[in-house]
């Protein structure tokens, strides 16, 4: 049986202004989901709420039937890949060291790296096509490789859900293709990938499922059926509440 990420009646607001308003949504594992919508539609907010980085106001988020908010932090099952600007690229750590960090939650404070852990790290590097770059400091990678390095860490952590914020921004054609290849590889491995995305032209090629947002849910489902001009127009035409007047 395939697992699900179940979001029910989710509201997240900033200064009483809701960025996501009563959202209900179910996403199955083994799929690559594109999160679409205009700027301010709540794409990043939704990703951060799932990652447990933002307090939620109403509703809940559950994975494999267990709540993943508040005291029930997602822990290692949900991995958030940070936006490039949020990372200190001068941090003295190699790609290998970064991926090894993914084993820390399993190892705790004391346990030394066992052969099994090393194998997981090697496999993660291999899956993300980074084996040749293992000893490089993280700033000595291209943008696409940097993103794959964080995905490799998430995989080494044995996460089931991968959250990416605009992962293709700033990547050239080759890097974009390479990233999408590894994301599809993760999907085929039974994972759930959720990526916000702003370019509409390549959606059918990248995502099996789409979620179209404009603060509320406009449409969700298989790309073939939900990614229609009508739904996109509805999402981009509605003015997102900006909070310039009293609520």
């Amino acid at each position, binding site marked *: 049986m395939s697992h699900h990420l179940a979001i029910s009646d989710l509201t997240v607001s900033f200064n009483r202004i809701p960025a996501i308003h009563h959202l209900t949504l179910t996403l199955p594992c083994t799929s690559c989901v594109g999160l679409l919508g205009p700027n301010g539609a709540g794409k990043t907010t939704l990703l951060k709420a799932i*990652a*447990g*980085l933002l307090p939620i106001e109403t509703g809940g988020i559950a994975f494999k039937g267990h709540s993943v908010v508040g005291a029930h*932090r*997602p*822990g*290692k099952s*949900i991995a*958030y890949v*940070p936006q490039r600007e*949020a*990372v*200190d690229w001068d*941090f*003295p*750590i*190699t790609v290998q*060291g970064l991926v090894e*960090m993914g084993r*820390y*939650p399993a*190892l*705790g*404070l*004391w346990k030394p790296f066992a052969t099994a852990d090393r194998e997981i790290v090697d496999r993660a590097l291999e899956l993300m096509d980074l084996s040749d770059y293992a000893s490089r*400091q993280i700033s000595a990678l291209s943008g696409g490789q940097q993103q794959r390095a964080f995905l490799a860490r998430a995989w080494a952590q044995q996460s089931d859900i991968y959250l990416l914020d605009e992962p293709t921004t700033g990547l050239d054609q080759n890097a974009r293709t390479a990233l999408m290849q590894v994301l599809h590889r993760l999907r085929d491995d039974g994972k759930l990938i959720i990526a916000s995305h702003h370019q509409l032209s390549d959606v059918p090629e990248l995502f099996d499922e789409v979620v179209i947002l404009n603060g509320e849910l406009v449409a969700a489902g298989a790309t073939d059926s939900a990614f229609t001009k009508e739904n996109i127009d509805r999402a981009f035409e509605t003015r997102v509440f900006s909070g310039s007047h009293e609520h």
Partner: protein
Amino acid sequence: MNWLLEPFGYEFMQRAFVVCVLIGFTNGFLGAFVVLRRLALMADALSHSLLPGLAVAAIFVGLSPAGLMVGGLIAAAIVAVGGQMIARSSRIKDETAIASLYIVAFAIGIVLIRYARVRVDLDAFLFGNILGVADSDLWTSFGISVVILLSLMILHRPLLVALFEGSVARTQGIPVTALLAALILMIVLAMLSSLQAVGVLLSLGLLILPAATMYLLSDSYQYLSWGGAALGVAGAVTGLIVSYWANIPSGPAIVMVLGAAFILAYLFSPKYGVITRALRPRHMHEESLGRWPKK
């Protein structure tokens, strides 16, 4: 070799040597985490804010190590927590808030120290006097070193994740705020342990310079802490010997030796040195030819 061994014929120099090894290692190791978290300015603030705490301790209980430690810790805590409070409850940013508090604390300290029960040499508090190290100072430094090194070894995995990406660490259930508070507590303890040797003001050099030097030499955080510790010991001992022969105070001598290492790394680090990089050929011509198909 006689010039190297002669100083250590004196008992006070032997003690000074042991203290140099202890505080060089501990401060160098801890400094890695301070540099990674960009806490150097915070550490500077803490070093200044120790003074009023030490002065109050000297007024009420004299110069016992335990009293000085409690006084220093309380004063540093007031400045660190007070700075955060001001930053959160007003439009003042945190570095301005902390700087405002620590410099006021420092001024209060200078005044208070005149009222100490025993005659206190302000210079010794500010710049240290390693030749006056007593047995109790040795044991204090030893105890503090053990506590700090054990804590860092136990906590290094969660600390590393918290320092690298605080928000991700929080999602994994790592208590980031508590870890940072523990780190700041360790900084204050380390400064107190180097108080007798290098003083309130120069303690920052022992903490920051070894790690800053290693940061220019290595891409691995393990080298940053272990290399920082080794460099801290080497610098402190070298500084001590220089101070003996040049007849200059030991605190400034140690910091100048560590500073020289930092400048050398800045100029000549194999990978990140400014001169090394300037002297390198513009690009690897021969090695790169293979990247393109032969015409």
